[in-house]
């Protein structure tokens, strides 16, 4: 069995996931870990990998191949290969939800909609130089409203009268939130409004990549029940959240790394591109 690590160097967190795979066999997840990315992507990747290896009851030198993905993918000096998070997400989702055709990946600073077929990218669309539809928007609101980030999803689900956040800018949206607070709007309704605003923005991306009646939601924001409900209600779709949703890109990178290592494909990656 060969041991392959996928490291997703995101702008908020660095996720490492270790798989074991034999030629012709089924890949098994052996361990995983998540650390804050901070300012040194290389150090964060090393630390995440170290913890993931320990959780897998392995040693660092047992790792045969390392595939990096995410914004910091080029910054990791000890990588064997780098792959974009778009290609990695497609591969990871396909492994966990083989029928998925449309993926929404909401990260700390970017949101991506990806149309996939058989684990290959058909087309993708990302938000551009704007944080209004990203996890950082929610994190800033949580900080301002003094709500622990990990409880935002539940808080949002308790909303009875969601308040719309109409601004197209994350910074200006904070002014709207302040207005809502001043007007006595509940924290639950504000967060649900934020989730609905995010769902509307994601809808514009998802429609461009051929969304039908079902999407796979990945990234750390997928842990928030409020966004799942908002997406389902606003976009009239069924939302599937795979297990370990924040590790999907790391998993995809590891699987693609395994393919490379085991010689299943000569290409550096395996996303079918017809329309991008």
């Amino acid at each position: 069995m060969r041991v392959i690590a996928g490291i997703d160097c995101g702008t908020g967190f660095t996720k490492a996931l270790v798989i074991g795979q034999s030629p012709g066999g089924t890949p098994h997840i052996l361990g995983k870990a998540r650390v804050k990315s901070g300012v040194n992507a290389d150090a964060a990747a090393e630390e995440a990998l170290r913890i993931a290896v320990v959780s897998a009851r392995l040693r660092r030198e047992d790792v045969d191949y390392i595939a990096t993905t995410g914004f910091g993918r080029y910054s990791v000096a000890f990588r064997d290969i780098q792959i974009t998070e778009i290609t990695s997400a497609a591969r990871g989702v396909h492994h966990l939800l083989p029928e998925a055709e449309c993926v929404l990946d909401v990260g700390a600073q970017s949101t991506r909609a990806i149309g996939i077929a058989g684990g290959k990218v058909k087309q993708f669309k990302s938000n551009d130089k704007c944080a209004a539809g990203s996890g950082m928007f929610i994190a800033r609101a949580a900080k301002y409203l003094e709500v622990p980030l990990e409880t935002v999803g539940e808080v949002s689900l308790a909303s009875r009268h969601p308040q719309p956040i109409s601004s197209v800018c994350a910074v200006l949206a904070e002014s709207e939130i302040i207005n809502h607070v001043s007007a006595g709007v509940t924290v639950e309704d504000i967060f649900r409004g934020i989730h609905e605003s995010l769902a509307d923005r994601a809808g514009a991306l998802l429609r461009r990549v051929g969304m039908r009646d079902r999407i796979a939601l990945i990234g750390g924001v997928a842990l928030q029940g409020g966004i799942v409900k908002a997406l389902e209600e606003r976009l009239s779709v069924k939302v599937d959240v795979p297990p370990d949703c924040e590790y999907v890109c790391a998993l995809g990178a590891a699987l693609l790394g395994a393919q490379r290592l085991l010689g299943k494909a000569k290409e550096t990656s395996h996303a079918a591109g017809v329309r991008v």
Partner: protein
Amino acid sequence: MAEKSEYRGNIHQRQKQLMLDWYGKLEQAASGDEPKTCSLMVSGNCVELLEAFGIVPIYPEVNALQLAIRHQSLDPILAAEEMGYAADNCAYVKADIGCLLKGITPTGTRLPEKPTLVLCNFVGCNTYLKWFEHVAKFTGAPLYVIDVPFLRTAEPSKEDVAYVVKQLHELVALLEKLTGRKFDPDRFRHAVACSARSEELWSRIKHLAKVTPSPFDAYFDAITLMGPLYVYRATQEGVDFFTDALAELEAKRSAGEGVYERERFRLVMEGPPPYPYFRTFRDMFAKWQATAVASTYSTVGGLWEFGFRHDPAEPFESVAMHMIAQNVTNRNMLQRYDQMQRYLEEWKADGVIIHFVKSCRLFSAGQGDMRDYFSKQLGVPTLYIESDLEDPRYFAEAQTRTRIDAFFEALEHSKAHPQPRPTVAKGTQLCVLPQA
């Protein structure tokens, strides 16, 4: 895997020297009464007529891009914004106006404070009308506007050509008055003949990119050659430069040398580059050993690879034809689709890269539909990226790199596992315009 394209032939050095010589002439003009100078646009211009009077062109766009490529564009942009130009104004305009206000030039040499004439030959882009009005106001130079009709028919009507020719004759009278020189028809014909020769050589260079591997990059390297094309095409220096450039690139072609050790992808590029990050942007494609084999941006000054040449037998009429019909900016979007489709088929390209320029409505309006047309209707791998040609604030390196990497990761697979593309009859013309 090569990370960069480091090809630097003689033509790159010659180009650099020619452009420095040009700035030298402009500095000479700034210090005295000669040579006479004229500010005008690159696209669809009548530089041949200026050459007939010995007038040196000043190209505000070239100054602006030279500033940007030297990472000096933000200061003049901020100066213009401080003056009241809006964030969404054309960044070329703001950089140029900011330079005027702050006395900045790309090479540090002086530019004439007051050109002999400000000549607005606006084709397609109405922003230029206001831009050149402002330049005339700030410099105190006289302004002449040539009204070039937009191309509304497959070929320009006789009336449209006559309308432009009439204005060119008016311009001749104005130039005689401003320079104190009598118009010399023979010198004009000679300038037109030089242009025809430079255009023929340039066209042959562009057709060299049809071979695999292409001996040069028809976007990034073509931009290097575009400076001499616009400044010198109507001169013997221009002819000499392009004669040598063709010979150098033909030698590369004969030796089977491409831009990279191994050419992996062939692209059609649409839109100007992000000049403030020109090298960074180029390296994003070099990493994948992707060569542009054709580009629409390199036809801004003139659309010569499909056969048009200036004609010394009909100098005024051919200059008018060039201004109306033979540059990409005065043609409609569907004609641009046709142009790109020919590139894809005849230059055998794998995909299209569209660079949307935030501050340029002229070139960028409609590019979303263009992406859908090429990707969805033709099934051509198409990448759409956004930044700006002049303003460094709109370039997001990490996001741009991710999109380009993801595009090539996908393209790599689709090349290895090709799918049939929707059938489009060869030579199908999208844009069928009425005959004049």
